[in-house]
């Protein structure tokens, strides 16, 4: 039964991955045929190109920033959506909307909103509002973390909503009898019970933002001052705007290595050996 999955994985992940590793040892400018250059691409990207390390630093900022923004918001949203409040269904539909839009459409819309001359800042009468959202190299990283978070929070909210709904009501009833308040219940029942959901969602968030590309490309192209040129974008620009597929492949392999290490680490930290159900009756 595993055959289709293995085939799919092989064709769409392993073969291209192998191809990229091969190209990382070649010099190729897209036109013409590639030629072997041994380790010189690796040498150049890792040691003679300081921007690689800048890009790595930007990537780490982006990944951590995205996680710190998305995780709490998604968790709270999920818990809220799983409840029984009035208008909850209506609000849940609204929260879900960003997930339905294509990222290019979202990017172009935010580009208009952030336009210094025609956007939000020009329309609202607040002088303290900056109008250089995308052109200020100190600000643009946080703007991107927000926009990307805006797109992905609904998805993770959905995961948490499903998780919360599976927590047996009897646990809360027992806690109420014992005199635990809502906050105590949240920290002592909801969070521990959501442990696996949190691990899944965290893995997706961290690895997802590590390899994130679309919105940053559409909104900024890495500008200004390459302030949001994180590794995936750096890979694209190096490969398809500077026509240096050798360097771009090295960056790609580095990204894969970081991605794999990160998900393995998460597995170990979360204690995969203790992965068993602790739900009542299961």
């Amino acid at each position, binding site marked *: 039964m595993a055959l289709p999955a293995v085939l799919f*994985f092989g064709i769409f992940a392993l073969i291209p991955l192998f*191809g990229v590793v091969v190209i990382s040892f070649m010099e190729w400018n897209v036109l*013409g045929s590639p030629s072997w250059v041994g380790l010189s691409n690796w040498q150049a990207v890792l040691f003679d190109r300081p921007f690689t390390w800048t890009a790595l630093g930007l990537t780490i900022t982006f990944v951590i920033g995205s996680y710190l923004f998305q995780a709490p918001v998604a968790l709270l949203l999920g818990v809220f959506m799983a409840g029984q409040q009035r208008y909850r269904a209506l609000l849940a539909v609204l929260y879900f909307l960003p997930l339905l839009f294509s990222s290019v459409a979202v990017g172009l819309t935010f580009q208009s909103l952030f336009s210094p*001359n025609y956007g939000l800042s020009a329309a609202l009468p607040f002088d303290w509002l900056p109008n250089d959202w995308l052109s200020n190299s100190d600000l643009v990283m946080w703007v991107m973390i927000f926009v990307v978070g805006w797109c992905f929070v609904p998805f993770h909210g959905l995961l948490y909503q499903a998780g919360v709904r599976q927590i047996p009501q009897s646990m809360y009833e027992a806690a109420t009898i014992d005199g635990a308040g809502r906050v105590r219940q949240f920290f002592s029942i909801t969070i521990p019970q959501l442990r696996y959901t949190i691990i899944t969602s965290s893995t997706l968030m961290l690895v997802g933002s590590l390899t994130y590309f679309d919105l940053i490309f559409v909104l900024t*192209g890495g500008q200004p001052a390459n302030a949001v040129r994180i590794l995936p974008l750096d890979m694209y620009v190096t490969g398809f705007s500077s026509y240096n597929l050798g360097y771009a492949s090295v960056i790609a392999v580095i990204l894969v290595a970081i*991605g794999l290490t990160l998900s393995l680490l998460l*597995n170990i930290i979360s204690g*995969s050996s203790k992965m*068993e159900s602790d739900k009542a009756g299961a």
Partner: protein
Amino acid sequence: MWGRKARLSTAVLAAGSLLGLSACGGGGDAETAEPDAWVLNGGVWTVVEEDFEAWNEENPEQSFTVESFANDIYKDRIRTAVGSGEAPTLIVGWTGGGLLEYVEGDYVTDITEETAELRERLIDSVVANGEVDGTTYAVPMNNVQPVMMYYNQEVFDEAGIEVPTDWDELLEAVEVFQDQGVHPFSLAGGSLWPMLMWASYLTDRIGGPEAFEAVVAGEPEAWSHPAIIEAMERIQELVDAGAFDPGFASVVADNNEDAHLVADGLSAMVLQGSWVYSRLLEESPDFMESGNLGVTTFPSIPGGAGDPESIVGNPANFWSVSANATQEEQQAGIDYLSEWLFNDDYVDGMLATGNIPPLTGLEDKIAETEDPEFLDFAYGMVQDAPNFQLSWDQAVDPSQERALLENLGQVFEGSITPEEFAENMNATQPSD
């Protein structure tokens, strides 16, 4: 319990998905006998698409599939498509270093004989760009695209000053507009390439065409030419004086925002290509009817060695025929170029939308149009120009293009000095 394996493979898939980028190629399928053409969108390209529709109606057996792209996206994609043998039958290009590479790699065909008749009708200085060592590999296919200075007359009237014709007047105008709270110039810095227009005009006015010719010729220290250094200094002088819209780094040219800032009176002037005129006709008809849009040449620089009539821009876009297309497809492409290109309807359509085809003897036709003033100015500009410098990003070796744009962006940001710019660019000069 979808424990470890499932989660691990999710992670691997997520990591692997980015590799898909390098696997995706172009659109044209070389196996079918259906010729195709990729075009850009907006402005003159609407006329190009209509021209293909007319061709397809008359030649159903050689019907073209036409796909249109945004400018910046097209530039990224076409090279991958050509390199992977998936190029469209007709390839839009800017000549320069890009065409040279296509020719060296045998990606485009020799069309010297087939287009001889067509080329006789065209302006020689434009046609010459499509030749490599005396052989024609590309022919002009749309309008001549000199870069000019657009301004909003109403904004100048309110400020009570005249349109600047030299550098000193330009600096004075910057100061006046600053006081008035109007951006003196808008600049689509998010797209980077509009910055090149400043760099290349300044270099040409200061040092004449020789400075950049040395770069194209591959001379090792060519970027350290005093004219290029001084051009960068003047750019930083302008930035420091507040000549540009402070949000310029987030303004992009693909949606014509820089020109709209002028149309809406938020900026006084913009340095842009001739294509902006036809896009404004489409996008801001009210402003165009008001008659407040003015065009003029780039200011002269006192003491500069360059001729103030020289221009910068793209002589035109060019068609090349893909060598990877089938025989039938290539034939369709050649038939289109030799029998159809620059037919009367196409030329009239271009003139009506404010675009000038690179044809000789157009004066009478221009006089007959509804709005001859702009066309007359631009046509005269091209014919009088002693030198027509091809846009720098297209003229240099394609491997330098991105570095040029990024380093120039840093000059505008003030994060590198003119000397550092020259040093960084010298390092990218092809070494052979």
